[in-house]
């Protein structure tokens, strides 16, 4: 086994492409090291991307935000501009693990670990976030929801690295929110979760909506029929009830150690209502 810390993305891609044996990218390590400890993977090369300067920054430009792949979630929480623009995304990222884990974990690691319960992913999906991917064949930009394809599996080609997550510039009257259900207040994995992202018109009517559910199916679910219910509404009680029903119906969960099918379906709807209201309030304030 080798440990390498390249200082440029080109080197990292080159190392990854030319590695003999299994190569693993190390960001915060909060998934990778746990899996290594458990004996689930034994990489031949560990490529630590944290010495690549460009990956360690959050940049705000005319198009929105570029969040480097090595930025720990704690830093996301400390970025006021990002928090104001995308409170739901930051909310999701900040729920991962503990203070200790926050100092290390990244949203890209969260995404690439491809757990259906990943906390930052539903909000990213609802936000319409895109990933900037660098590989041997060059760069491409893809929608975040296309990356996880099943528990522990991604659509990334061998040798590809996610360089950054891109978030659009925030339109007026927009707001997003994320909530998860966990039995404990902290240090827990989502039993089920929901994210809503809304843009309102000047009259306070929802113009655009995206609704995503976590831990409700093998990958994060983008529930279009739920979004359609919100569009044209003022997120009134009737719309919320129909939203909850649509979300519960869209779930395809399993029974496991963290929860039951019935519980997940019911609570997915409950959380969707709650986050829709929060997103609506946030949107109304801007």
């Amino acid at each position, binding site marked *: *086994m*080798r*440990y390498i*810390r390249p200082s440029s993305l080109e080197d990292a891609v080159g190392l990854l492409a030319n590695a003999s044996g299994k190569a693993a990218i*190390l960001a*915060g*390590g*909060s998934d990778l*090291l*746990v899996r*290594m*400890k*458990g004996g689930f993977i034994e990489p031949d090369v*560990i490529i*630590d991307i*944290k010495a690549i300067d460009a990956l360690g920054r959050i940049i705000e430009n005319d198009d929105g935000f570029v969040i480097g792949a090595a930025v*720990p979630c*704690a830093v996301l929480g400390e970025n006021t501009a990002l928090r104001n623009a995308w409170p739901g995304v930051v909310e999701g990222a900040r729920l991962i*693990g*503990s*203070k*200790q*884990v926050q*100092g*290390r974990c990244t949203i890209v690691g969260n995404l690439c670990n491809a757990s259906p319960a990943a906390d930052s992913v539903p909000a990213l999906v609802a936000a319409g976030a895109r990933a900037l991917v660098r590989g041997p064949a060059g760069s491409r930009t893809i929608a975040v929801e296309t990356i996880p394809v099943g528990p522990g599996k991604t659509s990334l080609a061998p040798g590809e690295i996610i360089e950054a997550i891109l978030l659009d510039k925030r339109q007026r009257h927009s707001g997003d929110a994320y909530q998860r259900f966990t039995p404990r*207040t*902290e*240090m827990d994995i989502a039993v089920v979760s929901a994210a809503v992202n809304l843009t309102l018109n000047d009259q306070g009517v929802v113009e655009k909506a995206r609704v995503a559910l976590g831990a409700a199916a093998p990958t994060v679910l983008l529930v279009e029929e739920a979004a359609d219910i919100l569009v044209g509404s003022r997120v009134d009680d009737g719309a919320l009830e129909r939203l909850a029903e649509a979300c519960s119906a869209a779930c395809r969960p399993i029974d496991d150690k963290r929860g039951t099918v019935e519980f997940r379906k019911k609570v997915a709807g409950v959380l969707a209502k709650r986050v829709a209201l929060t997103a609506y309030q946030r949107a109304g304030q801007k």
Partner: protein
Amino acid sequence: MAGIAVSTTINGDQAEFLCHPDETLLEVLRERLGLMGVKEGCGTGDCGACSIILDDRLVCSCLVLGAEAEGRRIATVEGMAQGDKLHPLQQKFLEHAALQCGICTPGFLIAAKDLLAKNPDPTEEEIRFGLAGNLCRCTGYDKIVRAVQDAASVMRGA
């Protein structure tokens, strides 16, 4: 497996060590450098007993590779007291009996130190959420929270 040479700063002192690429910083601190105050309760990031401060960030040393310590600054419980003068948190943990078995104590002290550095006057709720990454099975947390509150007020006064 070849050893990696790492040079780092621990509690203000230069330290050099060789480690395997898959060795965690926790293993290095305990087994190679003899810093046994850093405890292992789980090895998977769940209990906080191995908490250290790495370049001003609170982390679990079991979730950091030893090799990653190159050029970084590490603070452990061993560096909290100044000579024979205990840090106010250490003193208050003793006075409030915030430890029973004490295995969680080094992690709590480090996490509380980080918390108070960022928020010198936390509410009870902020303390509870700030320390949620550290498990204690003996105390029910009551006396730990009180010790941190008391230490915070001493440190604000000092």
